[in-house]
């Protein structure tokens, strides 16, 4: 690009920015030539169940009436390199995207291109992971306290003392840091809790299994495991090391883990704990919210108010309930073993926010027969607290950032 055209686009951007500030920009008229909304689904990587399910949910919703007539959805997979996602965002903006619903790779690297997109009238909706650029909407459970709540649940199960493992996510990732900081805030209050081993499992079942197996070789007498996604692998490793002994553990939402928690056989061997963590359903909520704003059915939120909290799923062992059908009905929250693989992340559904979805939506991106898009409840949007470096820049975390919301301590430090 020559410097001349750079200046030109800067002037243009400034102009568009000013008109937006003046409130003249009504995104509701910007449509593609064939009268459909041009929406991009931008993924970072694909290949694990979580990412696929989140993407499938958006695809299924886009095929559900009336969006099947009004939305043109284009899926773009950028890989794990922020540069690739930046240039993909650029292409989307250049193509005149009305909206981008995306899993962002980095919370900071995409800020500049997102800002530019906002100025060109593209709506950005991030799900699960976040960006700190204030013009983008972040729909995420990250601030809902997975780390501290699950840590307290583990401490309660262990009676406040014991040797534990931390099975973490991806090194250097802001989500992993937030979860682990929350958990350590709790564990540090209990001198009886000893972190025997801490390893990175990359949110993957198989890696978790092997890393836990290695840690068990050094510490066969572990008393509990605090795990992020991949937790089903930790149970497998425990059973492999000693088929008669399980320990209390907390983890995320895999179907295998929920079934194990509810398994009386496993409970007798010592398994107890809670299933919580990242729900793929966030993508569907983000997409529906974006469409309602695009269609003018919902007022856009002011910049700085665009961090939206998705409620933390919280399923202790005694709350696991098998679904008889293909959706979360009558309060069920896990599927029989023959319906989905163990690594399937169960939290793809949400009866209030996403009643349109069924199992085929999450597994294959297919719409549910006869379903039509239902409007989101008026009070669906819940503001997320500030989390510096995660959903805002130059902001302060609230003092009670690690306040427990799902569980009370039953043992005192």
């Amino acid at each position, binding site marked *: 690009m020559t410097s001349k055209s750079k200046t030109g686009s800067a002037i243009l951007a400034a102009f568009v920015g000013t008109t937006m500030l003046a409130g003249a920009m009504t995104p509701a008229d910007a449509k593609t030539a064939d009268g459909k909304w041009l929406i991009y689904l931008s993924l970072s990587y*694909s*290949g*694990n*169940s979580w*990412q*696929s*399910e989140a*993407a*499938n949910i958006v695809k299924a919703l886009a095929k559900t009436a009336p969006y099947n007539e009004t939305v043109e959805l284009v899926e773009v997979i950028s890989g794990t390199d922020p540069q690739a996602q930046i240039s993909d965002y650029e292409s989307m903006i250049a193509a005149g995207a009305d909206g981008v619903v995306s899993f962002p790779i980095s919370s900071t690297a995409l800020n500049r291109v997102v800002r530019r997109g906002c100025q060109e009238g593209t709506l950005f909706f991030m799900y699960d992971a976040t960006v700190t650029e204030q013009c983008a909407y972040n729909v995420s459970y990250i601030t809902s306290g997975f780390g501290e709540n699950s840590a307290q649940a583990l401490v309660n199960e262990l009676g406040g003392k014991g040797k534990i493992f931390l099975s973490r996510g991806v*090194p250097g990732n802001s989500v992993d840091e937030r979860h682990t900081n929350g958990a350590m805030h709790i564990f540090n209050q209990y001198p009886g809790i000893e*972190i025997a*081993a*801490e*390893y*990175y499992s990359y949110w*993957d*079942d*198989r*890696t978790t*299994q*092997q*890393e836990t*197996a*290695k*840690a*068990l*070789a*050094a*510490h*066969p*007498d572990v008393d509990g495991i605090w795990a992020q996604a991949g937790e*089903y*692998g930790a149970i*497998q490793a425990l*059973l*492999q*090391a000693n*088929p008669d002994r399980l320990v209390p553990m907390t983890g995320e939402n895999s179907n*295998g883990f929920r079934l194990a928690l509810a398994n009386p056989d496993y409970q007798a061997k010592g398994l107890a704990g809670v299933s919580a963590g990242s729900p793929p359903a966030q993508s569907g909520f983000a997409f529906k919210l974006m469409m309602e704003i695009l269609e003018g059915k919902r007022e856009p939120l002011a910049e700085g108010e665009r961090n939206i909290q998705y409620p933390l799923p919280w399923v202790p062992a005694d709350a696991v309930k098998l679904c008889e059908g293909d959706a979360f009905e009558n309060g069920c929250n896990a599927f029989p*073993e*023959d319906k*989905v*693989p*163990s*690594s*399937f992340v169960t939290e793809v559904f949400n009866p209030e926010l996403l009643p349109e979805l069924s199992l085929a939506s*999450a*597994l*294959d*991106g297919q719409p549910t027969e006869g379903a039509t898009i239902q409007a989101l409840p008026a009070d669906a949007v819940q503001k997320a607290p500030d989390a510096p470096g995660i959903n805002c820049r130059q902001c302060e975390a609230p003092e009670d950032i690690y306040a427990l919301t799902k569980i009370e301590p039953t043992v005192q430090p």
Partner: protein
Amino acid sequence: MTGPHPAAELSDTAAKDTRTAQKVSSTTVAVLAIYGLVAVLILASRAVSPSLGGLSQIETVFYLSAFLVFCAFGQGLVILVRGLDLSIASMITLGAILSTTLMGGSNDGLLYLVPAILLVCAMVGVVSGIGITFFAIPPFIMTMAVGIIVYSLCLGVTGGTPRGFPSPMLREFMQDRFVGIPSPVWLLGLFVILGTVLQGYSSLGRKLTAVGNNPAAAHVAGLSARRLTILAYAISAACAGFTGILLAAYSNGATLRMGDAYLLPSIAAVVVGGSSILGGRGSFLGTVGGALLLTTLSTILSALGIGQGWKTITEGLVILAALILLRDEVFTALQTRFRRTA
């Protein structure tokens, strides 16, 4: 071939050499050294945690190494014929996905499905081999392309969520013990014996080594370098598929990225085990030692209470040290020193 094997003649003359230092080959020393290093590491790990250094750690190391050894065998053969197989990760995924979707959690057809899956994987390897030999595509590019295509097919067909479960019999096999030792460790032992015989002592192994040493000379000697190279890629792909089937049984399901953690370690195990990355030289026992070393190292490191960055740095340093120590120059220097003092 007729007449006495040229190598046999050579070894006859070598046998007449009575100097002790000349009797041991550099490969043997390298292989012994690497097992020695593994033993030292395991003993030293007691300092890290009192539970380490015992039988249960050795068991864990053997168990976890098994997967790496299975796919590193194929990688070793490919490297032996001057190639490189970057499709291993995708082939592991393919083997795992085929086994969970085809078996669907039942034991029916286990006996014919496993060979069928291995055959499918081998055919993919044949495709890589044909591209490399007949179309002269560099192995690096060819196997990478095949790997990407296979992975993308898996992604497209499964929609990102591989279905199904491994056969219960395989699953039990992965958890069972036989005479107090996990069954996969027995399988590892059997595999090592077969692999050593195949690579080191069979006519096929010698032919592959000959092709790797000098393809032109091998051709003159009447060997079909192309056919042998293709065979090496087929075996490598089948070995990776085999690893995938067992991994799926180990972790009770397939995921798309399950092979990723084995691609670079499979190459590292071969090279750390004393094989030449340029082909023509190497022993499977060395590769097994390399795999054991890598696994032992990561077992100990995960028990250390240090940050992830330091763990990775330590791992890199130990591998580097092993490679430097196992170089031919070091061996020759020691040999000279030994001869002088003797």
